[in-house]
């Protein structure tokens, strides 16, 4: 009995001792393999993350630093809300923020509605000139509107005489110009998506007596909702970042969008107000960042389908 127990202890002990030794070896080997396979990737990830994030951390720092843009601008040494209060008291920043949301919002809605309607027509109807129009759109979308800004300026001067609301210094003008790009850029993205919605759905609805408008509004648009969200967001971001046309048309600070307003704060070599710029950038980037990260997956699929962020 005792010998048996002893034996058991012994074997257990040796077994324990033995396994401990192999465990150490195995763990070392395993760790080595982990480093070779996975570990170094963590290091790369950390390094790249720092590279990605340090300018953004810095802009936040600058927003709270009253000495931003001066020789003694510091890194996380001072904290004050001075820049934010200056931003709203020394310029119509609230109005500019509102302008940007209005222009971006209406442009996004208009773009989605018009682009989706056109995509529906191309996807569901067969008509004369369909191939030509599609090819035409494909070619047109290659040319950025920006290239024609001289002619846009001249057109706005002409329209001003007839419709003052479509003239200089009007948000409506800017929206109308942005909507000019609605079909070119987005119809293709949507067209491909519309084609994936089975036609049998339309046909079933048609048999039940639905009109083409009912099919479009109540069936198709619901099926393609994700792509509508992507197109809307991309359109919002591109009008958010658009500078040349906004600066050309909008002449008074009260009418400016953020791109023009933020450029005005630091663009020229004189009168740079980096602190206010940083405060403004932090305020205005937050909604875009949140939206972007929230809809990240959809945007990526939209991007790989051919659109490029402006």
């Amino acid at each position, binding site marked *: 009995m005792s010998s048996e127990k002893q034996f058991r202890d012994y074997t257990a002990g040796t077994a324990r001792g033995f396994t401990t030794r192999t465990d150490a070896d195995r763990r070392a080997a395993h760790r080595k393999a982990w480093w070779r396979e996975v570990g170094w990737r963590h290091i790369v990830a950390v390094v790249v993350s720092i590279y990605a994030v340090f*300018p953004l951390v810095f802009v936040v720092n600058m927003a709270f630093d009253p000495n931003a843009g001066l020789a003694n601008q510091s890194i996380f040494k001072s904290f004050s809300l001075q820049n934010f209060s200056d931003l709203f008291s020394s310029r119509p920043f609230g109005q500019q923020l509102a302008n940007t949301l209005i222009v971006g919002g209406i442009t996004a809605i208009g773009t989605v509605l018009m682009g989706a309607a056109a995509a529906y027509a191309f996807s569901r109807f067969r008509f004369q000139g369909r191939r030509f129009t599609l090819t035409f759109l494909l070619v047109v979308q290659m*040319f950025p509107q920006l*290239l024609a800004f001289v002619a846009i300026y001249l057109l706005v001067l*002409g329209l001003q005489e007839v419709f003052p609301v479509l003239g200089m210094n009007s948000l409506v003008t800017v929206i109308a110009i942005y909507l000019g790009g609605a079909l*070119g850029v987005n119809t293709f993205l949507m067209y491909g998506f519309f084609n994936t919605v089975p036609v049998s759905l339309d046909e079933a609805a048609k048999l039940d007596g639905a009109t083409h408008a009912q099919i479009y509004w109540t069936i198709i648009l619901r099926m393609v909702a994700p792509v509508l969200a992507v197109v809307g967001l991309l359109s919002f971001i591109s009008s958010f*970042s658009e500078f040349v046309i906004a600066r050309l048309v909008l002449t008074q600070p009260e009418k400016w969008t953020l791109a023009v307003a*933020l450029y005005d704060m*630091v663009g020229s070599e004189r009168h740079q107000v980096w602190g206010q710029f940083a405060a403004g950038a932090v305020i205005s*980037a937050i909604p875009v*960042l949140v939206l972007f990260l929230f809809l990240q997956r959809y945007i990526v699929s939209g991007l790989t389908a051919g659109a490029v962020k402006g």
Partner: protein
Amino acid sequence: MSNETGIDRAAAKRRRQATEAHAQSWGAGFFVKLTLMALIDALGVYGVWTAFKVGSTVIGTVLVVLLIVVNYVYFAKRALPAKYIVPGMVFLLIFQIYVMINTAYVAFTNYGDRHMGTKQDAIEAIVRNSQVLDPDAPVRPVALLLEGDEYHLAYVDEDGQAQVGGQDEPFAADPEATVEGDQVTAVPGYTTVQEAEFEGLGGTRPTKPVTDLLVPLSSDPNAGSMKVMATDFTRGQTYRPGVEYNEAEDALIDRTSKDGQEIVYKANNTTGQFEANGQRYPGGGGWKVMVGFDNFVKLFTDPEIATTFAKVFIWTVVFAFLSVATTFFAGLLLALVFNSDRIRGLKFYRVIMILPYAFPGFMSALLWKNLLNKDYGVINNVILGWIPGFEGVDWLTGSALTAQVSVILVNLWLGYPYMFLVCTGALQSIPGDIMESAKVDGAGPVKRFSKITLPLLFVSVAPLLISSFAFNFNNFNLIYMLTGGGPIPPGDSVNDPGGTDIMISMVYKLAGVGQNPDYGLATALSIIIFIVVGLIAVFSFRKTRSLEDVM
């Protein structure tokens, strides 16, 4: 029996409900359509009316055509697809197609600040601006009058009659005015401006709108005009145009030269200006004419413009190419490194790593302008500041080379997340069984990568690389926000192209912000960009055959 009727009744009710519901929804849609169309037609008719009233025949005609088309499309039963395409197409045609065509037209004119309007406008402006003081004419006491916010002048003529006139309104007798001696003291409908009101501005010395006031003495343009003295607004002097337009000779006769000699500037209808001995008339602009390919010839042969253009063109191509190359390789490398499901927290890392892409691009460019500043920028002070003896690099304004390197590096930060996302997607879509079978066939990791992964990746990524190239080719925001196109060579003006200007920002400088905008030259340069983008498009269509997907 009763049971049957019950069923019948229920069925009838159902049918009735169905038709009612149908009619109702159709009716609602129809009313929405009717209201919208009524609004559009009202706006359109108003537009047509104003357009013809202010003389914009082109806009008026286009509006009429649009109104007819839109009404036909939405009220005819046949034009079903058009109902869905027309709204977007209208905006596209006006704000994209028309402006592109107009760009092409302007490129063949000499349109610019020296050649703004018609020949008639140019002549009128030149004659009006050539006023010289007539030393023989009397200096008269005048009264300065205000009607609303417009200034007028009044004086007493030789017959004791009060004469009142304003800018572009020749003097005319006003019998109701009160005259005291040689002075007009009051005119009904006007308020007389008293000396006291100007005292705060330095006594009787007049200010800008008053000094600009030029009142024609009579409707005969050669009679001259009256202007108040620069030092005293209570006295008026007579000015006469120093330049006369001779219609028979189609020339300007300039009598303003100091030696009293007449210079004859003949109208040159091919260059759109008045010229004498090859010199254009210096005191005013010309008019807009078609100049054929002159602007393009200038871009390629004018010694100053051609060298700048060549430099800018080469840099644009280099910039676009390097931007795509650096971001793509960085993105590909990262995608390969993180194409493993064994990394814990990868989702978190990925969100952090794509943050630069989510941050609006123009803000990033402005932010980097601060980071790269020589004196207070973080790059010099913190990141490189620890190196002993490091004195700081003037990244953005030091030399063209450092500015160009900076632009590429900033664009790398902005663009690598996009390529990372795209490459990750492409890598994950490569079917695993191909890799397995290659492994079984004995292909090593290097061979598998170079013979399978890379080619398959390129197939799906190539069109995106091309469109990324096209995008960066016109990446105005980055250049303009980060360097403003600078550094500008010493001695050049702020509006001259600098070391990092790409073609589109050069167009911007030529057309917008410069001292002498030259729309003709600017649009000619735009046309060249159009052609390059067009070539890229053709190349990309060939490569991706996306045209075939359409059909």
